[in-house]
């Protein structure tokens, strides 16, 4: 048995460790101050794909990402960990996409890739925490979906059984292939880079990256065609322009503010017995407690 698996992965600013300089004075995000990382839950999704590949020889795992030229970094990262390759969807037509326009473009790219048995996504991306793109892609492709997967318990050419982690419990469900599955952060973490693969793929590049580099890659890529990371623009996918980018995004950002909390006049106390006892008495007297 061999399956064709696509992992949807996104390069995101690391919002988890936001320092003081992450916000500009005007309240907008200073993206330059945040390192760009592989969206954490997309790595959980990649791991599920690689596990299937390990189990069923001939299974192909490709990563699809939409983003700036630089986002090819996470495709290479995926290859270092065991993916067979990837596709970069990039271009100014995609700029300003909200989740709906993103899913429209990703769905069109998946149609172009061709026969796909399984699409794996992260549950959500940490830049927006929306968890929308996966289900929206599934809808656009007319595929069923299973969200919040913690483990793929069983998979065959026609069927998959998945354990889902929900807010208030767990559920085991079964569905037919092809299907889209979103993977939770509580699923197994991704295997580390493999030294041999890192060596093999360190020169894997998109055409934009090759053009921007001073090295001439022509010969290397002729003898090692697997190093080519296909890069597609809007003209490479079948689409209607009104559904791409800003035009295809029904949601508009009206306003952005940085968060400030109004400071209160607070009473300062020490742990001394009398101070704590006075506080407790005060709270009892004004009926806050007791």
């Amino acid at each position, binding site marked *: 048995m061999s399956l064709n698996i696509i992992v949807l992965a996104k390069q995101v600013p690391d919002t988890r460790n936001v320092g003081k300089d992450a916000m500009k004075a005007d309240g907008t995000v200073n993206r330059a101050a945040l390192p760009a990382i592989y969206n954490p839950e997309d790595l959980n999704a990649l791991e599920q794909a690689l596990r299937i590949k390990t189990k069923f020889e001939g299974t192909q795992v490709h990563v699809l990402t939409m983003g700036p030229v630089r986002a090819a970094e996470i495709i290479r990262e995926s290859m270092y960990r065991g993916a067979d390759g990837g596709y970069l969807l990039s271009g100014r037509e995609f700029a300003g996409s909200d989740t709906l326009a993103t*899913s429209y473009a990703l769905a069109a790219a998946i149609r172009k890739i061709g026969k796909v048995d399984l699409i794996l996504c992260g549950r959500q991306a940490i830049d927006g925490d*929306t968890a929308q793109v996966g289900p929206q892609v599934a*809808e656009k492709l007319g595929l069923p979906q299973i969200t919040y997967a913690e483990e793929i318990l069983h998979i065959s050419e026609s069927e998959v059984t998945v354990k889902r982690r929900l807010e208030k419990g767990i*559920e085991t469900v079964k569905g037919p292939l092809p299907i889209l599955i979103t993977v939770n952060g509580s699923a197994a973490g991704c295997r580390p880079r493999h030294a041999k693969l890192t060596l093999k793929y360190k020169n894997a590049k998109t055409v934009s990256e090759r053009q921007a580099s001073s090295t001439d890659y022509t010969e290397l890529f002729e003898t090692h065609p697997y190093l080519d990371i296909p890069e597609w623009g809007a003209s490479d996918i079948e689409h209607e322009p009104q559904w791409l980018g800003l035009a295809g995004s029904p949601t508009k950002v009206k*306003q*952005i503010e940085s*968060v400030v909390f109004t*400071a209160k006049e607070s009473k300062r106390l020490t*742990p001394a017995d009398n101070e704590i006892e006075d506080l407790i008495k005060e709270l009892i007297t004004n009926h*806050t407690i007791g």
Partner: protein
Amino acid sequence: MSKDTNNNAENLTSISSKELGGNIFVYLEIEEGVVADVSLELLTKGRTLADKQQCKLEAVAIGYQLEKIGEQVFPYGVDTLYLADDERLSPYTTLPHTSVLVNLFKEEKPQIALMGATSVGRDLGPRVSSALFSGLTADCTALEIGTYEDKKEKKVYEDLLYQIRPAFGGNIVATIVNPDCRPQMATVREGVMKKEIRDKNYKGKTIRLDVSKYVDDADFVIGVIERHMEKSKINLKASPIIVAGGYGMGSAENFNMLFDLARVLGGEVGASRAAVDAGFSEHARQIGQTGTTVRPKLYIACGISGQIQHIAGMQESAMIIAINNDPQAPINAIADYVITGDVAEVVPKMIKFYRRNSK
């Protein structure tokens, strides 16, 4: 529908959502015949919005054996309740619930559709929005009605839904609008909105949908093999007193003193994410942007630094006491009482002095 107004030197086209009509819909999440709190909270919000927009509040229940849903939701001011009642619609699976909503929304053309930002709502919402090509904003913390000016298109949209949500890990708050697409869809987490009965005797009408006209047999491809839903015994939202512990508690053992304090005061124990991540407490107790939102009478923050994402879930507490050994901890800025000291010293003292002074 649109009229030209001269409210600017340039001619702006003014478009009113109110005139575009459509009602406000809330998807009801149902577990074992009981409507989830988050849905009731959204009905309360939806009622306020409907009054503002002078339209109706409508609720949709999809499931099995829904006879008792009406009595649960009408008091919240529901004008129309749609029931899609069919054995195959429970437990929830994505496709049939999507089909009911998508087809119903195509008929009814709501202006606004709200659902809980729960495991179900976040599975269903994007699916519906994708099918209808309408925008969806996840995890809103506030919903308001207001005006939006599209300077490029020279259009002014009146009475739009402001979908206000934290972004970039909670460091900014963004106001999102969907000017052109309907419905304007949003999800909201449990506890963010307040739940309030409008009128015990509020009368709305019930419409039973012919389910076979809304779903396709092919929608039933996902089979639920096993389900374990835990009814949480922890009810943070309803507790008037919350004793919350953070990473500064140091260990799960030390967390026990918070349970002691909560017990004597008659409160519940909450936790910061760092405390949950460190294994000091279970996830169900997490307070903040990605946990529960609480507004108790008294919030005692023990060993919590007070990062934005935590504060987002407790800033509306009537009184806040912060216990922290760092006099500069950010939580202190929003606290009414700041006790600078070690939690291991202060918490036992609070228990002792409470016992001594209460009858």
